[in-house]
């Protein structure tokens, strides 16, 4: 039994606006979905008015379109161009700088800027799982990333159960959605029916319960609880895609010489978009930068991925010089060797990699083809 109140409550849109105010009042930087440049992106929010009320998305492999909805739903969208890693594991971060004084003495100053205390509004179940996966990679083990750990431990997560999965979602087959059970501070379910537009909200942590107590909410009525539960359950039946139900890890291990890699390599641009949008891909490169004086140096960490030739550059050249080998690395790491390294799959079924691949290479389709090749 939790030592805080987990009784579900109901919020209307004004209540959601109050939630944003309460979080900001507690000194948090609220980040959530909003419309920008023809997509629903994640950005800092000043008020709940900036949420994408009435906007939906139409998703296909290699295609994303915003669509006006018939209703005012605020969270009926998925697979945006960013994930929360943009905030927890930013694209570029300085790690330290060093100065040499005229006597040749070096002073090295680690970068420990004050990290924002984030509140993430609308974390999908797949993304909640992705954050848990990045926690193991970046905050666990011997080589924790300080910046990540600080931002993550201070972050307040408001999960959002999925009621309307996109055409590219397959969280059910990856076991990560469409409902949430744990790992959040607050969980929301958006309900839109004849009784109005409202949110079922429940606490998942003491701080979540505290925030909830600051809002004037009504205890959830039986009808709202039931509608929320049945819509989420129904969402599981409406996944746009599915990963083949099989031991993917074994399939990856058995497929290293598959012909399918040549087929996909002929279509793949090696542009890196899939890895950059993937909420679990964590790879970075390190740059040491000097200035013209030669007395000042800085170390920067920035996103890099296995689609970059330099990623596998050793003495004599890149180890993975062909697109075949780079695509294979992405897929076999994601679905295969990730288990050995981090104890789970690296895919949560969010569908971003296939939506934001310019040529629409679909991970579920590639896996199905590999599976077929393996059994034929």
């Amino acid at each position, binding site marked *: 039994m939790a030592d805080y109140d987990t009784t579900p409550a109901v919020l209307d849109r004004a209540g959601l606006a109050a939630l944003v105010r309460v979080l900001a009042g507690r000194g948090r930087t609220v980040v959530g979905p909003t419309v920008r440049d023809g997509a629903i992106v994640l950005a800092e929010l000043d008020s709940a008015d900036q949420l994408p009320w009435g906007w939906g998305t139409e998703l296909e492999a290699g295609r994303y379109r915003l669509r006006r909805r018939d209703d005012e739903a605020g969270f009926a969208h998925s697979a945006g161009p960013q994930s929360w890693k943009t905030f927890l594991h930013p694209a570029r971060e300085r790690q330290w700088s060093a100065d040499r004084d005229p006597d040749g003495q070096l002073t090295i100053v680690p970068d420990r800027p004050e990290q924002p205390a984030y509140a993430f509004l609308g974390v999908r179940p797949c993304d909640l799982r992705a954050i848990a996966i990045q926690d193991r990679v970046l905050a666990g083990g011997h080589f924790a990333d300080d910046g990540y750990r600080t931002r993550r431990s201070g972050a307040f997560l408001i999960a959002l159960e999925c009621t309307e999965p996109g055409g590219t979602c397959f969280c059910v087959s990856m076991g990560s959605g469409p409902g949430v059970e744990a790992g959040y501070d607050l969980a929301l379910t958006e309900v839109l029916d004849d009784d109005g537009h409202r949110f079922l909200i429940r606490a998942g942590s003491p701080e979540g319960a505290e925030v909830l107590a600051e809002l004037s909410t009504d205890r959830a009525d039986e009808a709202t609880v039931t509608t929320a539960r049945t819509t989420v359950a129904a969402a599981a039946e409406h996944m746009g895609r599915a990963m083949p139900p099989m031991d993917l890890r074994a399939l990856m291990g058995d497929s290293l010489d598959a012909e399918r890699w040549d087929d996909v390599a002929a279509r793949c641009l090696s542009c*890196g*978009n899939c890895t950059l949008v993937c909420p679990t891909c964590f790879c970075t490169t390190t740059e040491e930068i000097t200035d013209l004086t030669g007395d000042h140096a800085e170390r920067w960490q920035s996103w890099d991925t296995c689609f970059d030739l330099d990623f596998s550059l050793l003495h004599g050249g890149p180890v993975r010089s062909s697109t075949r080998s780079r695509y294979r690395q992405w897929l076999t790491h994601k679905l295969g060797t990730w288990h050995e390294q981090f104890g789970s799959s690296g895919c949560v079924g969010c569908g971003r990699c296939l939506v934001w691949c310019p040529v629409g290479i679909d991970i579920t389709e590639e896996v199905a083809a590999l599976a077929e090749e393996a059994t034929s």
Partner: protein
Amino acid sequence: MTPKLAVFKLASCDGCQLTLLDCEDELLTLAGKVDIAHFLEASSAVGPGPYDLTLVEGSVTTAADAERIRRIRAESKHLVTIGACATAGGIQALRNFADVAEFRSVVYARPDYIDTLATSTPVSAHVDVDFELRGCPIDRGQLLEVITAFLAGRKPQIPDHSVCFACKQRGTVCVTVAHGTPCLGPVTHAGCGAICPAYGRGCYGCFGPAGTVNLPALIPLLRRDGMDDRDTERFLRTFNATAFAKEAGS
């Protein structure tokens, strides 16, 4: 010994060497670190070679320049080519796909005054080049990085990946996926910071092909997004026309 810096120009618009003058905040520091021995755009005072670091802008379009670049190479310990002209032949390499004699007779009142080669070629087609810095024009920060790396004796940090990497890093919404706008980002070398997509336009390929390119896979997308054969050809035939033509296998 203060290293000697030289800047030379072949067939080009001067935009890339101007980038060096454009480094206003760093110019004074740079002048303290190198002896700017030859840089006609900044000063007509010319110091003799050999030069430690030579920056070459422009492509080879005349027999005289083909000869001159050999002399420049012989006088340079390190030779770095800057910009699309020097690294890929530039926009003037469009002549490589056409008949120069015909151009000459149509454009000039006295064609016999014009002494030119049939092609515009990158410097690397004539002499060994130590490093190629791409762009039309080059990026100021990247130029400083190349010079700084040279002074520190390290490799310049100039990534070889696609514009898409930079586009995603800066959080731009992909114009191809979300708007159906043709974009050369997936086949273009990073370096500009993905400026065009950030303003809702497709990438024009100013930096030429990335380190690893699959141009045939991109063509169907350009078609889907409304480009016919002629549009596609024109899209690829700008500042790095010959480099993209090589990638297209044509």
